[in-house]
């Protein structure tokens, strides 16, 4: 099997076929050729999702259903922060880069030895969490709570440049793990508490210069009223990319004002949508709206997972998303046409599904003065935690959340920012394996009361890794969801990754504010 060398500058094996497999891991701008194949660079994990497809499926097979019960701790790294790790680490050239708000660390992937720690100056942006970093040649990139983008020297953590992506004083912040496509570094921001247009920015990774800006809702001064008066639609999660069609896929967040629907009657495009953009120009190729006229803070920012599979017996280029509104969507990613829409988590807010595959919102479930009992709650049927696609069994494994909340709005709540009130009532977490061709749940695995924050990793050997709500990282058999191993490491707040160094496979996961690397015993 072809693998990348340990150099991150170029994938050295051969030119075309090997690049097709090493693809996203070779970080020379010339060598970046994304593919939808499983992750093949055993010693690397160089983007948020591990590859452009967002499948988080590894080709590594040293850990198997038969031996995973022997997993043992190889090392642990404590960040020393009070906030838990939500970031997916990236790994290149034997070095792991992990982030938290205002912080970035480089550590040795073999030993957890810290190479450097960068601290961003104190600032007034939102410090809610951080999803991870990006890497390009000798630079790693960190977004900040006050919506800056910092290029750090990968060797020593020194600042190369620092640019402003969006105006933090207006209410933008960023937790985003940027996505590198050739010489475009795509950076998203957040901002729910002010009425702000949704922004995705493409930045030159060499200089920090802005290449283009895409608005998911109209910037001030736009003629007409294409979003029905809504702002929002922030693209705060990392997108996916199909090199064959040269399309970037990104999910957009909820409209603002968040809970006040009457002031923005209409569908509110392109909020709560899955969008296909040309990464060279930022031009919209197509859009699919997962939630029309959202009044419950349900982003469609969740990972748009790309799969080359079959649908109704015909080969198909697919995009699938388990969305925060509780619905699972399968689209033809060449056109954005809906192929399948069904629920994967409890949802009581729609009266049916329209001819375009979009759920039809029930007006009676809009926030009201006396309260409406709605599923999912604000945190959603799922959230930023990543799902994983297992090609062998054809399932998308999703950390789902069956939950109810009560939603209120009265006219004096106004039309700015949140503009209403909502309260979670009760929820429980269930890992669900969704058959992508039918939408049926192949198996479920209870994760406990409350919302799990852990994403999912599957491997070619038939393992599924995730975390429950009680602070256990768990390994399941992908074919049926049976538990094979667990370790109580504290609340798992990120999505596990895996890599192989010196012939040893590691599974890396965050528990609380620490990273834990698990491996099989060295002398088996």
């Amino acid at each position, binding site marked *: 099997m072809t693998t990348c060398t340990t150099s991150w500058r170029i994938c050295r094996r051969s030119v075309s076929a090997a690049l097709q497999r090493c693809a996203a891991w070779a970080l020379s701008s010339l060598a970046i050729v994304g593919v939808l194949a499983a992750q093949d660079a055993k010693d690397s994990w160089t983007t948020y999702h591990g590859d452009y497809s967002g499948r988080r499926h590894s080709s590594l097979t040293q850990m198997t259903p038969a031996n995973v019960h022997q997993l043992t701790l190889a090392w642990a790294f404590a960040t020393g922060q009070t906030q838990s790790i939500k970031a997916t680490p990236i790994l290149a050239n034997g070095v792991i880069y992990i982030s938290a708000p205002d912080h970035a660390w480089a550590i040795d992937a073999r030993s957890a030895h810290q190479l450097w720690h960068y601290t961003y100056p104190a600032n007034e942006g939102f410090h809610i969490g951080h999803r991870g970093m990006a890497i390009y040649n000798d630079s790693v990139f960190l977004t900040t709570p006050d919506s800056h983008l910092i290029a750090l020297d990968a060797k020593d953590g020194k600042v190369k440049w620092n640019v402003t992506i969006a105006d933090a004083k207006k209410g933008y912040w960023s937790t985003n793990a940027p996505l590198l496509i050739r010489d475009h570094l795509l950076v998203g921001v957040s901002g729910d508490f002010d009425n702000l247009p949704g922004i995705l920015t493409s930045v030159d990774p060499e200089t920090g210069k802005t290449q283009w800006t895409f608005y998911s809702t109209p910037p001030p001064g736009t003629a007409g009223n294409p979003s029905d008066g809504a702002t929002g639609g922030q693209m705060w999660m990392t997108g996916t990319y199909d090199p064959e069609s040269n399309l970037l896929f990104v999910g957009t967040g909820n409209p603002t004002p968040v809970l006040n629907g009457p002031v923005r009657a209409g569908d509110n495009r392109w909020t709560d949508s899955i969008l296909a953009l040309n990464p060279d120009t930022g031009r919209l190729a197509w859009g699919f709206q997962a939630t029309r006229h959202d009044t419950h803070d349900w982003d469609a920012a969740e990972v748009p997972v790309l799969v080359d599979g079959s649908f109704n017996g015909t080969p198909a280029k697919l995009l699938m998303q388990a969305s925060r509104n509780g619905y699972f969507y399968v689209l033809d990613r060449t056109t954005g046409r809906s192929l399948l829409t069904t629920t994967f988590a409890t949802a009581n807010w729609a009266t049916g599904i329209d001819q375009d595959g979009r759920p039809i919102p029930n007006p009676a479930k809009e926030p009201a003065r*006396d309260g409406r009992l709605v599923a999912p709650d604000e945190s959603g049927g799922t959230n930023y935690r990543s799902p994983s696609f297992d090609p062998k069994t054809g399932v998308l494994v999703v950390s789902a959340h069956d939950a109810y909340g009560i939603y209120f709005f009265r006219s*004096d709540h*106004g039309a700015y920012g949140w503009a209403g009130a909502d309260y979670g009532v*009760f929820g429980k977490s269930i890992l669900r394996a969704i058959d992508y061709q039918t939408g049926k749940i192949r198996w479920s695995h209870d994760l406990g009361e409350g919302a799990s924050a852990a994403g999912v990793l599957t491997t070619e050997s038939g393992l599924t890794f995730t975390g429950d709500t009680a602070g256990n990282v768990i390994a399941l058999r992908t074919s049926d969801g049976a538990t094979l191993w667990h370790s109580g490491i504290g609340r798992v707040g990120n999505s596990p990754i895996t890599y192989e160094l010196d012939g040893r496979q590691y599974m890396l996961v965050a528990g609380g504010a620490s990273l834990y690397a698990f491996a099989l015993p060295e002398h088996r």
Partner: protein
Amino acid sequence: MGKRLQNLTELIGVVVVLQAASPQPRSPEQLQAGQRAFAAQCGFCHGRDAMGGETGPNLTRSAIVADDVGGDKIGPVIRDGRADKGMPPFRLSDADLAAIVAFIHDQKIKSESPGARRSVNAADLQTGNADAGRQYFNGAGRCATCHSPTGDLAGVAKRLQGLELLQRMLYPSRARGATVAVRLPSGELVAGALAYRDEFTVALTDAEGRYRSWPAGRVTFTVDNPLEAHADQLGRYTDDDMHNVLAYLQTLR
């Protein structure tokens, strides 16, 4: 609420603070510093205005805030966190902590002024029919299986009002907990209050107050969790049912 109005409210808030006979006067500078620090560190969970957010409660309605004098109750919560509720500890300077405390108190004053946003008043919730609620309570809702208007719910409307009563009606998280009976491999039966349960471990607190745990796969156990009925009911309520039962509970004074 627009920026302009928000600023106006802030101005009014400052005036109110200056007029209030507060034991600890709060300067506009301190409130501004508190607002900034709160937004950065606390805002996502509790809302930038402290009136509730994605995972954190509305602090202007918090009992801890109501009881707090100069940070004596809020300070320890911020410094130590509330692990059981998912709140991490925060390391803040004394000045930042004092500013955040001042800001929270200021927001509480604002929230009690007319027109404040993001609040639910008891008056908003009066759309139900108490007779229909009583019928649901005794019939389709099966509430009477566990509850009695002359027993555990006698006077409930005196103890709880408005949103808090509605929330506790839907899912009374602080009500009596679950119990568990554990059969050990020896045959011994141990019963007590369920203290912990995940996929791998079950634990109870016995009659003497001792914590005891076992690997879940090595014992057999039966959990009796009265709250399961509340969780199940969430999928059965119509919004009218919910408002009707609330109206009925409000008659139990």
